[in-house]
């Protein structure tokens, strides 16, 4: 019979559903670059915090107003570079696949991403001002993970599991406080690179 027609119908239905409700040109390369920037940022942060060490004794993290300001600038710099990479590679990919960006899907994706993200950002700043520095790295991981899970409905499925891993990592980091920078490098650096490569291979080759 006309089985082929029905198979085509189902394919068409699937394609329309995902094209109309998800941003599918999210680029894996953006993740890879965000990861590299994060690792570079973590290295810079490391050298800022652990300066003038006496390597024979215990290492002392030096945190004063000056280092906190340089840490904040490193964080903001990393964030801007990562968002830039995200926009650049996703726009490039959307051009290739002829998908329109900045339509209502993208808007919904960003709104849902930014609600937990901005909440976490503001909360981290407040805690930072009150002097609770150690908790900030775990919290940024947790809120970033929550933001990804929340936004994953509107883009590729992998984003959800990436979000769950970031949350788990954030919780570990809360328990092992003091190792914030290491967890931070894993979450924002290594996980981004791994997921970016996997998604790049899966969707873009």
């Amino acid at each position, binding site marked *: *019979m006309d*089985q082929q027609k*029905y*198979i085509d*119908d*189902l394919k*068409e*239905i699937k394609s*329309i*559903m995902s*094209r*109309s*409700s998800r941003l599918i040109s999210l680029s894996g390369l953006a993740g890879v670059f965000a990861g590299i920037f994060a690792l570079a940022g973590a290295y810079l942060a490391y050298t800022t915090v652990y300066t003038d060490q006496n390597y024979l004794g215990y290492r002392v993290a030096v945190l004063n107003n000056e280092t906190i300001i340089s840490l904040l600038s490193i964080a903001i710099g990393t964030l801007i570079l990562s968002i830039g990479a995200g926009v650049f590679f996703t726009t490039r990919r959307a051009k290739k696949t002829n998908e*329109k960006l900045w*339509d*209502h899907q993208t808007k919904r994706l960003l709104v849902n991403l930014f609600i937990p993200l901005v909440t976490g950002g503001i909360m981290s700043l407040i805690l930072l001002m009150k002097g609770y520095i150690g908790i900030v790295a775990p919290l940024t991981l947790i809120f970033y993970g929550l933001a990804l899970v929340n936004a994953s409905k509107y883009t590729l499925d992998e984003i959800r599991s990436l979000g769950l891993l970031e949350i788990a990592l954030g919780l570990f980091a809360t328990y092992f406080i003091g190792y914030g920078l290491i967890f931070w490098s894993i979450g924002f650096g290594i996980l981004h690179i791994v997921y970016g490569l996997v998604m790049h291979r899966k969707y873009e080759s």
Partner: protein
Amino acid sequence: MKEILKDLNKAFENKVRLGIMSALVVNDYLDFNTLKELLDVTDGNLASHLKSLEKSKYISFKKEFLDRKPNTKYAATDEGKDAFVKHIKAIEQLLK
């Protein structure tokens, strides 16, 4: 076999109507232009298929003004969603 064929919905046999329903069941609502771009059809073609789905009460619409331009938002009704799910299940049965 006859049972299955009964569930196949005539309203969704057309590609454009099938496309409209696919898009509307996964979105709360979509406006005319978004549907047009998504399905890559002409104004007239889309309008006539929307009208026929409307007649079957599978979709509903709401007229609004956006920057003083009319903007029509379409949404799938519960009836339409049910019919669409039934239709897809029937197709899946046929392919088994």
